[in-house]
């Protein structure tokens, strides 16, 4: 499918040698929203959270997170926001997979210093799934490269899909599902949010949501 029919009129291209970044309203909107959210995170002060499971004892317990951990977490959240913004605007298939893997690593990193062992346990399991799914993710991109000879999305969208491209795209879909932690791998990822530190934890959720939207666009571009 042509990217003009998917994302609206072409506003311009940024040719960087082999890779051509194309800008249309759809990608630009996703990019701007993520950058705006990243900016909000960068200026936000950490807030403490009330531990919900202790409401029934009437003693409302606040869970504090110390300053150092919050600084580290904020830094990783900002990098995560920038990486997902890059995945929104990139015009290269392999760059998209690399941004995706980077977001996966940063998601683990954001919760790496929490005190709850259950959160660490689910982060460990999510990390294992993300690592296993890098095989179909990168492998799918490599198969598409081998059968078409290019990784540029602008060129790929003009090509008819051969059976090998369809196979690569299916592998990539499996990889995207695992790497962003959606069904059927969601159990461990959902448990990763159960920790204090509200403004930064939510980037884990947001980045995978946005990346799924972009992945649907890319798969449509490659397949149709």
């Amino acid at each position: 499918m042509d990217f003009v029919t998917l994302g609206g009129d072409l506003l311009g291209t940024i040719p960087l040698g082999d890779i051509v970044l194309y800008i249309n309203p759809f990608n630009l909107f996703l990019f701007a929203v993520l950058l705006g959210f990243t900016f909000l995170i960068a200026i936000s002060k950490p807030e403490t959270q009330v531990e919900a499971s202790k409401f029934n004892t009437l003693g409302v317990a606040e869970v504090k997170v110390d300053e150092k951990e919050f600084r580290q977490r904020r830094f990783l959240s900002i990098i995560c926001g920038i990486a997902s913004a890059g995945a929104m605007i990139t015009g290269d298939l392999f760059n998209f997979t690399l941004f995706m893997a980077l977001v996966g690593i940063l998601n683990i990193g954001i919760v790496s210093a929490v005190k709850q062992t259950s959160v660490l346990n689910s982060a460990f399991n999510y990390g294992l799934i993300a690592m296993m799914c890098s095989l179909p993710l990168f492998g799918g991109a490599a198969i598409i490269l081998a059968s078409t000879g290019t990784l540029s999305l602008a060129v790929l969208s003009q090509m008819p899909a051969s059976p090998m491209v369809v196979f690569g795209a299916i592998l990539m879909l499996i990889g995207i599902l695992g790497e962003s932690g959606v069904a059927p791998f969601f159990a461990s990822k959902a448990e990763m949010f159960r920790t204090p530190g509200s403004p930064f934890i939510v980037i884990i959720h947001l980045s995978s949501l946005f990346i799924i939207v972009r992945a649907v666009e890319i798969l449509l571009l490659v397949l149709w």
Partner: protein
Amino acid sequence: MLYVPQEFISMYLPAIYAGLIIGFIGTMAIAMKREEIHILILTDIVGLAMIFVVSAVGTDLAEALILPGLVVELAETLAISEILITREMRKIEQDPRANLKRSSSLFPQAFSLDMEIMTTAPNFIALILIAYGIFLTGFTGGAVAGGGIVLYALSKKARGLPVLVLDGIAGVSGIAWCLWIIGFLLFFVTPQYWLLSLFLAACGLLLKVASKVGLIGLLMREDIDKE
């Protein structure tokens, strides 16, 4: 259009199949194993299968893709092992006596062998390996001799290595580094003594690699046996 031999093109599909099959075997093994450290190592095998599939493309572009793939793989392994370490530390913090209950073992399954050859043979094999490593010289020789030292260190059950031994090995490593640098310098300053500088560099590299591998083995054993 560049000419590519037909043999290389026909290698592509078998390479992809091999990568996918390795990944499948790796995930099967992960499904069967229950020890977390083994799962981590097996996951790395699946990651290496990814490198397989990417490198099967075989163009210069694929070469540029392997490096970021490797880096991502390494970063993920580091992040996950960091998570594992943090979790174990938190567990020990919450229950300090928990880590005293059972001692960890190198082997995936518990087994005990009581044979005389297990205590006498490693010394002999280590000696042969070190002698052969000295004969080889250079990087390969260093690795072989270091393997001998590691074998010796792992086979000896005696715990509590004296600090002098560790310091001594580290010192030998430093001297070897100097030998290597001097050999390299001589090579450029006085090219007519190339044989001398070659031997200096080769012996330095041998000692360096051997002592480094040996040190890793000794420290690893110290870490594992620590209680």
